[in-house]
């Protein structure tokens, strides 16, 4: 089976939200309500249990001349966000039931018939993607259209994208295409274009690559995501030291006073 990925190119995105709609329809994801955020055209505001594709409307003031910007204008970038399907996935590591698995395509999949809603994956995700649906009790996120991939189809969002901003394919091929695309953008003067693919961090790279412009943080993409298992060594060392202290301390407290207390009576 090929290892697949998304390449989401924000320089091609027109903010139509067809990916959000296609995802909702194919996966039968419930409504996430109507709320006016006041933040550009983004009233969805983030990925969640009922939003698996999310179009960000990134209004930035950019430096004069960068990519043809006149310094007094707002740069309006669009970018369709999705579960990163990490190479080392915090949610998958945290899941105590084995509900969250890695598929043969390399994606991270939550088996809804196994999840018991413990909520530990929610605090395990460094990208704030997975969440527990309150009225259902289980955790949900992007399935990478596992069912469609099994049937040899591309994910619904990629199929619906009218500008090929969302590309789906073999991961090594997409990594190469991302590099080529950024080089092309640089040649055209968009010298702030870059690929977001945190391979140097403990996450070890993702199966959802992004081409963005400017600072990744403006897109709510963390520069240094960490998979929480990196904290385990320190945590269990501290726990083991505490456990030893509890036993030694209790032994000392009882053994130390044993002679003095012998024969002493107690209230019932």
């Amino acid at each position: 089976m090929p290892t697949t990925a998304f390449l989401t190119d924000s320089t091609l995105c027109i903010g139509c939200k067809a990916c959000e709609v296609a995802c909702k329809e194919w996966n039968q994801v419930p409504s996430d309500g109507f709320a006016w955020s006041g933040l550009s055209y983004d009233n969805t505001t983030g990925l969640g249990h009922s939003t698996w594709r999310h179009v960000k409307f990134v209004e930035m003031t950019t430096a004069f001349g960068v990519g043809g910007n006149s310094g007094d204008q707002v740069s309006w970038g669009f970018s369709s966000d999705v579960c990163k399907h990490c190479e080392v996935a915090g949610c998958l590591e945290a899941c105590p039931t084995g509900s969250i698995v890695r598929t043969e395509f390399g994606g991270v999949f939550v088996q809804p018939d196994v999840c018991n809603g413990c909520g530990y994956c929610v605090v395990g995700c460094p990208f704030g993607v997975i969440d527990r649906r309150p009225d259902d009790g289980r955790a949900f996120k992007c399935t990478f259209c596992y069912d469609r991939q099994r049937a040899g189809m591309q994910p619904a969002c990629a199929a619906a994208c009218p500008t090929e901003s969302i590309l789906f394919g073999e991961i090594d091929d997409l990594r190469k295409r991302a590099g080529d695309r950024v080089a092309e953008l640089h040649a055209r003067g968009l010298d702030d274009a870059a690929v977001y693919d945190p391979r140097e961090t403990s996450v070890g790279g993702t199966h959802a690559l992004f081409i963005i412009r400017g600072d990744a943080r403006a897109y709510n993409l963390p520069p240094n995501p960490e998979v929480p298992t990196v904290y385990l060594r320190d945590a269990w060392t501290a726990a083991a030291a505490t456990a030893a202290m509890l036993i030694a301390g209790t032994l000392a407290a009882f053994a130390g006073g044993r002679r003095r207390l012998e024969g002493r009576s107690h209230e019932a």
Partner: protein
Amino acid sequence: MRPDAVPHASGETGYYGLPLLKKPVWTWEVPLYFFVGGAAGAASIIAATAEWTDADVTLVRDAEWIAAAGGAVSAALLTADLGRPERFLNMLRVFKPQSAMSVGSWTLTAFSSTSSASAFAAAMDRRLGGSAPVRLVHDVAAPAAALLGTVMSTYTGVLVGATAIPVWNRNVRLLPAHFGASGLASAVAILEWLGHEDAALQRLGIAAAAIETATGAIIELRGRDTTEAMAPLREGVSGALTRTGGILSGPVPLICRALGERHRSFRRVAGLSALAGALITRLAWIAAGRASAADPAVSLALPAVERQPSNADTCRS
């Protein structure tokens, strides 16, 4: 750049200051479970140690029942917190050392089994006036429960520490000792309120209060140079809870126990204070985790100075 009339996205403010991380979904059951499980684990250590050093038999008996009851209540609380409580047994489908939730679920299952086996076997042994097979069950279960009790009292620190939540993972080395010490203080307090006045309990109470005082001091001092990550422990509702819990589980019982050498009633006050402190502290850590997740400053590595007020309130429910 001109002043912003409307919110903008940038490398300084992130994506309109919206949170990057999801808030912990845990409600009151989980901090209460941390509290009950911590006390039960420590009680099983006290029971095994007291028995091994030939301490008062009623102290051993009561400590064993505290551990057994605490184990049962812990299992109920952890199950109640699940989004699908009827699927608790799915926790036992697999064992994953890299998941503290998996290790904890197995530990809780083994602990509640061994601690209740130990307590019931001891009771049957007394009722039967001595029975070798029953005694064997007790003699195997009691030390097993004590060893598992050390995990029960400390693993919850690993559970919250090894997560993506900044205020939790920045304190990953502190949390196991913090939870272990307050669990021990809680078990001591319950035993004292049941009428036990063994001097060993007083010593354990002093040690636990001293560790908790040190923990509180470390939280206050570390907050000065790593303000962004530690802010939830110092500001807002979670900050107030952290400080209240810290004072009640550290300095107050320490002073009361020092006075308790002469006046017994002060030991009771110290115990009550430590119990309240242990519970409030655990509620505080969960509240701090929620506040920490709502603030993108640390998770997104935003520069501290130019940070705008968070737009977390405008986020959809």
